[in-house]
């Protein structure tokens, strides 16, 4: 057994490496977007790709998101695997028609003859002090669109593994990158990354018996911290990281909630009409007689994303998670 140098890497680095490795392995992988070439992207996720693979493989496009995704559709029709970068969450909106009416539907429309293996990378969420339009959590839109996979990593390992899986997928994947975790670090070896797991599997990040926190992406660290803090209150919380919103891993989630009997869904997206409703509803459908309390939700408020100086009031933090856990009708038990 050889030992590999494992040193701390950021999620941004792991994502960059995933793109690089995918491009090196498969000449049909092409990266395109605004500023992805010479600059390496505003978050530097595509850093070095144009230099290594040339402008034709990593292309600075004109500034037009519908055009980027629309031309990616055409490239995919011709057998390429485009990886599109949207610069920020809210700047993906101009491409919605292409996404909803074509990217999500082309395989179905053609009875499988014309799959579109496109990965749309969307840096999403807040907590980085961004001004308006730079911190939206837009996953609800993608989840409501059949034909798309919707994936979001919360760890450095998953950033690499899930992005590789997304690019390898024959289906379109909306790959949501939690901006505020870009600089989160973990021991990770680019030369010996964990095996690429298929898309669609949730993972239990922390075992516990009292209640299940169901979360993903930027809220995973919050939930893990809350779970640690909860020990002081006598709660042993389980934390499930969904990783994939579509397909949804009903089995892993329901297994956990059946065991614990209580659940809180935690995400940064607005609550009303956000992912939490779907998650709470399907958990309840599957685990009703195991539930000691309704599945609660801790989410961003139902407001436009706040300006930087106020965003901390909006973002679900440890205290809000603990408050929700406290409302899980523990009295009933004693």
């Amino acid at each position: 057994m050889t030992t590999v140098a494992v040193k701390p890497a950021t999620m941004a680095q792991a994502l960059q490496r995933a793109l690089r490795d995918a491009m090196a392995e498969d000449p049909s992988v092409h990266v395109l977007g605004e500023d992805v070439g010479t600059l390496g992207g505003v978050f530097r996720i595509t850093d070095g790709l144009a230099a290594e693979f040339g402008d034709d493989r990593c292309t600075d496009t004109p500034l037009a998101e519908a055009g980027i995704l629309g031309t990616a559709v055409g490239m995919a029709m011709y057998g390429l695997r485009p990886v599109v970068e949207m610069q920020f969450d809210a700047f993906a909106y101009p491409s919605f028609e292409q996404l909803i009416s074509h990217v999500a539907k082309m395989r179905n429309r053609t009875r499988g003859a014309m799959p579109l293996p496109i990965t749309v990378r969307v840096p999403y969420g807040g907590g980085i002090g961004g001004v308006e339009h730079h911190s939206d959590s837009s996953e609800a839109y993608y989840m409501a669109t059949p034909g798309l996979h919707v994936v979001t990593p919360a760890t450095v390992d998953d950033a690499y593994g899930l992005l590789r899986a997304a690019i390898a997928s024959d289906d379109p994947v909306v790959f949501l990158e939690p901006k505020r975790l870009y600089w989160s670090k973990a021991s990770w070896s680019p030369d010996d990354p964990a095996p690429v797991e298929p898309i669609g599997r949730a993972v239990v990040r922390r075992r516990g018996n009292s209640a299940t926190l169901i979360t993903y992406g930027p809220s995973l660290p919050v939930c893990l911290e809350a779970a640690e803090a909860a020990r002081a209150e006598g709660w042993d919380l389980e934390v499930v990281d969904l990783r994939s919103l579509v397909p949804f891993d009903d089995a892993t989630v329901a297994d956990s909630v059946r065991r614990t009997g209580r659940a809180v869904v935690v995400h940064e997206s607005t609550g009303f009409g956000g992912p939490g409703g779907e998650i709470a509803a399907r958990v309840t459908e599957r685990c009703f007689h195991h539930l000691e309390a309704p599945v609660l939700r801790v989410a961003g408020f139902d407001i436009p994303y706040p300006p930087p100086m106020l965003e901390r009031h909006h973002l679900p933090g440890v205290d809000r998670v603990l408050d929700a856990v406290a409302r899980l009708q523990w009295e009933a038990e004693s």
Partner: protein
Amino acid sequence: MKKSSTSVQELPGAAADRPVPPPAWQPRTDPAPLLPDPAPYRALGTDAVAAADPGLLLRLYGELVRGRRYNAQATALTKQGRLAVYPSSTGQEACEVAAALVLREQDWLFPSYRDTLAAVARGLDPVQALTLLRGDWHTGYDPYEHRIAPLSTPLATQLPHAVGLAHAARLKGDDVVALAMVGDGGTSEGDFHEALNFAAVWQAPVVFLVQNNGFAISVPLAKQTAAPSLAHKAVGYGMPGRLVDGNDALAVYTVLRDAFTRAVRGEGPTLIEAVTYRIEAHTNADDATRYRSGGEVETWRAHDPIRLLEHELTERGILDEDGVREAAEAAETMAARLRDRMNAEPVLDPMDLFTHVYADQTSQLREQAEQLRAELAAAAGEGPGEVR
């Protein structure tokens, strides 16, 4: 004085230096050759006919006649309830047919919902071409078989697809041209703009054919644009704009072929505006009398693409009465076959709804498919009857 200064405090005194003119400006492209000619190009009635290959002229004629008959048949089938909807290209057959004939085998066609005829003229089975409009599935054909993208309903959205495909082919070193079709109304969409811009920046081998048929449903061109012509939009992207009589099949073919030649040579995209007219209503569901006069329609009927070509070819002795009759008969045969086949009920499997949403069915879709299967079985058990 310091060499680089951004702070204004250092500026006083700088006045002594004579400021230099900006880095020499020059247009990135010479605009003159990009501008369309002042009037639509016409070939019929000019020397161009004599110079043209008679075989091509007869092929165009045959396809026009067949195309007109196809439109009439599809319209009739719609009236009989055999199609959910039909947007006819009657009057626009010259564009549809020329578009199909100019394509080489390896080239791609990107049709809009109105362009089933172009697909059929390219060789697609008419029943497959009409699947979307019959309503048994969204696309009735494998796009790779004839290199025809699915008919696109959301206006102008197919244009960036054509650009991307052409660009990809070029990157792969393949000699492929993409021909993208769109209507006058579609040129107002943002996707039109973005597609043309990408095409020009990438010098993609793509040809944009705008059929200006005078209307977007009820909205006349004057409410759609104030441009001198739609072809004038080309200059804003740095590609040539060409204006052609869309009812003159040879003219459309010629302008398209020139654009293809440019594309193949690596000279980039071309925008073509074909001036034509939508003789029928927008679709069978539309009532065109609400927004236009019969007189206008008559004027255009007199400039009918088939009559134009037939007259020319007959006068020049390229086409005789036998040829005319043969073309009509061939069209009738096609129509009869189409009618028969469309009158047969399509065989449908409701389970198809779940089969192609993803490469691998999700557990959710598996459950839902099971539910429907059970419902269908139960309904079948109850004897013939609808799922309520």
